[in-house]
């Protein structure tokens, strides 16, 4: 940020519009011209068309869906929505299940990753770089490979030969197993993101806080967490959307226990496995499941803007 420095210091500085000197600045400048805006608009519309089509379909009867394209807007009915909000096809209890899964599954990795990256960035100990590399390297392990061993761990505990390393925790078939799985799979990326963000915070700030008498706990809570808010929110949104849309982990870890299955499992179950009957209600159910993540995204998107660090140091 460039500021005008007034020699007397009396008048608050007015930021002047500087020529963009950074790559980001140049790119931003380049993207604000009308041609770029038009291109962005076209891309935006193109990417919205399938969703719009789905929305229209959700209001059309089976016959309409089967015989004519959605752009004809024919055979409109609210029947699909009636079917997915009542009776055997009711998805609403599963929305509640999904909420119960998604909130802890987003908060647990955020908390653990924030603490871990604080230690990895700011506490000097032997081998911390290797630990960081090892954690991030786990990102290459595909979820599909790890999920079965994880399920076995949840059901049986961890054993080495006949020796029990960790006893079974009684999580099998509970929502705790789903949280654990999501938290585990999220951690490598979460640690990576927070580590990178945290290491951009000037060391001076931490040293100033130490001189002011803050211990690690106080520095973490009062300095780092407020500054990390954009990163926490950004990762929180990612994790929320990922967990909300997840079918695989939810299906495996919930052990087909309807009381804890997420909405994605229910939606998948709406379609008969043999003839594909009942598929006409899927667009309506999908739309009900979109509402909540959409609201979350709109509410938190401003945190994507990382402006909080401006002004801490001159630059």
């Amino acid at each position, binding site marked *: 940020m460039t500021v005008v420095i007034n020699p007397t*210091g009396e008048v608050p500085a007015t930021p002047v519009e500087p020529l963009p000197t950074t790559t980001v600045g140049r790119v931003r400048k380049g993207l604000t011209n009308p041609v770029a805006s038009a291109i962005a608009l076209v891309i935006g519309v193109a990417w919205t068309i399938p969703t719009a089509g789905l929305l229209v379909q959700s209001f059309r009867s089976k016959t309409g869906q089967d015989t004519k394209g959605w752009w004809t807007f024919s055979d409109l009915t609210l029947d699909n929505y009636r079917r997915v909000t009542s009776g055997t096809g009711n998805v609403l209890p599963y929305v509640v299940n999904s909420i119960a899964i998604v909130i802890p599954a987003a908060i647990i990795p955020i908390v653990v990753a924030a603490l871990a990256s604080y230690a990895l960035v700011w506490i000097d100990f032997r081998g911390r770089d290797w630990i960081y590399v090892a954690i991030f390297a786990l990102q290459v392990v595909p979820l599909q490979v790890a999920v079965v061993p994880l399920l076995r761990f949840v059901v049986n505990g961890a054993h080495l030969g006949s020796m029990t390393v960790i006893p079974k925790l009684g999580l099998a078939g509970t929502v705790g197993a789903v949280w654990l799985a999501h938290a585990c799979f999220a951690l490598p990326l979460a640690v990576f993101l927070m580590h990178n963000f945290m290491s951009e915070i000037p060391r001076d700030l931490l040293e100033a806080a130490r001189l002011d008498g803050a211990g690690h706990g106080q520095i973490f809570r009062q300095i780092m967490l407020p500054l990390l808010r954009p990163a926490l929110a950004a990762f929180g949104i990612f994790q929320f959307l990922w967990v909300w849309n997840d079918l695989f982990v939810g299906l495996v870890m919930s052990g087909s226990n309807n009381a804890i299955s997420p909405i994605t499992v229910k939606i998948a179950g709406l379609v008969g496995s043999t003839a594909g009957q009942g598929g006409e209600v899927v667009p309506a159910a999908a739309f009900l499941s979109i509402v909540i993540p959409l609201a979350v995204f709109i509410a938190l998107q401003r945190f994507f803007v990382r402006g909080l660090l401006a002004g801490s*140091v001159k630059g």
Partner: protein
Amino acid sequence: MAEVSYVEATCLYPGNPIPAVDSLNLDIKDGEFMVLVGPSGSGKSTALRMLAGLEDIASGEIRISGKDVSRRPPKDRDIAMVFQNYALYPHMSVAENMGFALKLKGVSKTERQDKVREAAKLLDLEKYLDRKPKALSGGQRQRVAMGRAIVREPSVFLMDEPLSNLDAKLRVETRANIAALQARLGTTTIYVTHDQVEAMTMGHRVALLKDGLLQQCDTPRNLYDRPANAFVAGFIGSPAMNLRTANLVPGGAQLGNIVLPLQNSVSEAARAAGVSTITLGVRPESFTVAQNGGSGLKLEVKLVEELGADAYVYGSLQGDDPADKHFIVRFDGRVPPRIGEVLDLDVQPGEEHAFHPETGERLG
């Protein structure tokens, strides 16, 4: 109130066998304004950070008020530091920034507000207490950083190049303000800078470091008048002192076309050291136009810098190589010489400095 002592204090960075600060011995008196100055990499900032508790001390001790604090964490040393980048907490208002240390100490809210307001008044920051740092100018941020240190009423202030991010004019102004503030508060202050003008104008005493070694610690006047070695001589003073290797000849040292008479003590020291050449130093302002025309030091003018009050003449002496550094002479700004002119100069008696040609130590 506190005095500070470095006793053989050494700091090693991992992977580097050469100490960043090597066996530093330095006593700072109660209420003194001590400036640590040196080129980059001289260890001046490291020395300050050792005192702050931000760098480990490999050997030796640092004492504050006679107590060894070398192994204590920063918060138990009763010090406050002003950082080069100010290191203000970006998410806190000015008042919160200044009161943070007190809050951690558990000082009550009303007392905290009183102290913050008092410090803000001192620094002319009252209007900005509710602002965030990003809404302040560079000078204001700098004052907030000062305020954050003052509010805590520490026994020692540490300042790490606090002016280097300000523009030239504001720097001169703030320089005077900091010196005045320190005089008023009477708190022992250790101030790190690479700028010798800041060192000379602000410090009660100045300690000059190079490569982790203390070169000289003295009052600005003494540092200027009697530099302990050729490095100090070249570092202190702007423009820098002219330093030339000169042959010893009967009656003095050969400088250009003249034989510059040396003080007895210098000749004796040179004889005792068994050297046939010395490093001769003369400050740019130690010259006058020669009284007896034609007998003085001949200087061919190559370049003139006019600064208004003064004019600095860059020239070459008789017998100089083109590769030799220009010889600099201060002139009255109203009658600057022209380029190409040959000046006839006298050296003010007693204003020459002589150093050992190899060790650089002062002779005499």
